[in-house]
């Protein structure tokens, strides 16, 4: 995706500089604010695509920062980072106006994938298409129908939702935990490779016998659906 402008609000300078470096390597522009007040001021004044906000910050804590931004009608997507990972912590974070919640420690690939999904969603706006198209694959959300090259492919309801989420974020890396959260609405770590097996089943249905393959495994990160010919 095209470069996004990211503001990282994090009081741990070492962690922040790792993040900035990694985001820059991924082709994005990253700024850093060391405390909540600075983060709030910069988020209000400068047009960022995504804010990455630590929950515990000096001067103004992360949740209050997000709440204040939302009160000022700043609708920049916010990803909250926190060491607190229980269900109620997550609910509090999302209720404060956060768009996503990631528990420390995390893999950078996870953070990158989530930030990119958030940034893209805000660029495209809230209007959701009723038909997703990737290559010859066409998913009709209203008719609950999937076709590839005009040929209908029957899917189980869960497979449909899985593919729907992948296609909604076509061209983006989607991690296993993102799939578990968005398709199954669970936040725990299933330990076993349950998601991988669901993906390979789905792949057998949508890619087998067709060319080119659309559902790709991104090593060390997750999955992506994209039109390989472009």
């Amino acid at each position, binding site marked *: 995706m095209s470069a996004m402008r990211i503001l990282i609000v994090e009081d741990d300078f070492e962690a922040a500089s790792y993040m900035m470096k990694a985001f820059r390597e991924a082709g994005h522009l990253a700024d850093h604010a060391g405390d909540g007040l600075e983060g709030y001021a910069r988020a209000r004044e400068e047009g960022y695509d995504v804010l990455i906000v630590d929950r515990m910050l000096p001067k103004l804590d992360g949740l209050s920062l997000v709440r204040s931004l939302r009160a000022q009608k700043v609708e920049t997507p916010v990803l909250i980072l926190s060491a607190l*990972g*229980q*269900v*109620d912590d997550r*609910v509090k974070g999302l209720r404060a106006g956060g768009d996503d919640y990631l528990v420390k*420690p995390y893999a950078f690939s996870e953070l990158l994938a989530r930030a990119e999904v958030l940034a893209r969603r805000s660029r495209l706006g809230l209007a959701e298409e009723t038909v997703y198209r990737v290559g010859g694959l066409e998913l009709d959300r209203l008719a609950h129908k999937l076709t590839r090259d005009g040929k209908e492919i029957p899917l189980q309801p*869960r497979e449909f939702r899985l593919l729907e989420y992948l296609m909604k974020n076509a061209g983006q890396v989607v991690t296993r935990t993102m799939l578990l959260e968005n398709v*199954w609405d*669970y*936040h*725990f*770590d*299933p*330990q*076993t*490779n*349950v998601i991988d*097996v*669901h993906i*390979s*089943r789905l792949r057998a249905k949508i890619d087998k016998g067709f060319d080119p393959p659309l559902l790709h495994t991104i090593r060390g990160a997750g999955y992506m659906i994209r039109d390989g010919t472009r």
Partner: protein
Amino acid sequence: MALGKLFRTTAFKISLAYLAVSAIGAGLVLSSVGWNIEHLISDQTAQTISTDITGLSEQYAQGGLRRLVNIIQKRTSRPGAGLYLVTTPLGEPIAGNIASLPPDILNRSGLVETAYQPAGDPRATRRALARIFVLDGGFHLLVGQDLEESRRLRQILGRALVTSLVWLVLFGTFGGLWIARRVLERVDAINASARAIVSGDLSGRLKLAGTGDELDRLVQNFNAMLDRISILMAGLKEVSDNIAHDLKTPLTRLRAGAEEALRTARRPEEYRAALENALEESGRAIQIFDALLSIARAEAGAGREGMRDFDAGAVACDVGELYEPVAEERGIALAAFAEPGLTVHGSRELVGQAVANLVDNALKYGGPRESGQEPKGAPAPVAQGSVEISARRSGGMIEIAVSDRGPGIAEEDRLRVLGRFVRLENARSRPGSGLGLSLAAAVARLHNGSLRIEDNRPGLRAVIALPAAGARREPPALSAAVPGKAA
């Protein structure tokens, strides 16, 4: 026991208050009875007197003074008679049983209370209620009743009042003291043993009197609290022990790997392999840490405020659907079914994770035996593995059961596997932290439910029983399944 302390006790204060209330009550009752009786008597006396006067004045009208004097002399000669006096218009007595009266009494009309001296005993002064009637010819007729009776009655009543009050106060005071002392003795005993337990051995418990009264219930709750505290203490100790052991293990490996890479690696790909290894080890440490935190939080009862109603049957089916492809890949048939409308009040996320852990275990250990583990010469397993998830209502509980057809767990190990980090011998070679079952047990307890490990004949059946929404349940006995005691 110091008397001052006794007076300060609640029991004594309460008995004192009751005493005051009943003393006032008794006083009121007795005085009202007395007042009523006196009233009745004086009414009756007045009635008798006026009837008497009417009768006598008729006799006088018919038979004159002689007849009246005759009647009065006859009446006064009988014992217990009323008081009579007939005088001349000047007040000189003609007949009757009154020796003398205060002056001027004879000129008063209506009912009069007066002192008099009886004829038989002129030195005694007594009181009487009397009425004077002036007959034709100016003669005075006095008819009266001695008041000695009613005075005595009042005296008796007064004495009864005082006596009963004295007894009441005596009984009340000593009874109150006795009750207070009895209660205090038990409270003191409870306090003493509680202090001993708190300051020393937390494994001690208070003794029940066996009466089932409120003090016994207090003791029961106190003991339940102590049980809870020792579970938490044991948990804390275990967590620190386990953090020491199971987290230090991957950290040590991580460190050793890094050191070795620094010492020996020369080429970039060697460094890369070492770093990937390090990432994997740190991931394992994080996983263990997360699981430990979840268990600790569930056991401390955190997250209760986030609970809401959800369909446990849907969770069972969701988890089944989530694991079904993995099961199929491993050659295990996974089936899930649920009765409709199994509403549970709690955390869908945690219950989902608990069920997922059970299914994960069933798939890991309950599948067809791998050939490597088969004893030599044994025939290859023919039966395919099968795992079944079911959710049904059983009384006030909702039971989610995960059953497999694997080797199961020996009866003596069943309670033990609920402890943290417990991994039975044949599981050591497989991946896993040994925290799955203890998390499931902690989640069940958080919901006031339980986790049972049963024999599926053959295989293992793990049942999470959760109270159905709306059916409130007392927390289960805490000592029933203490996790980690055997760990």
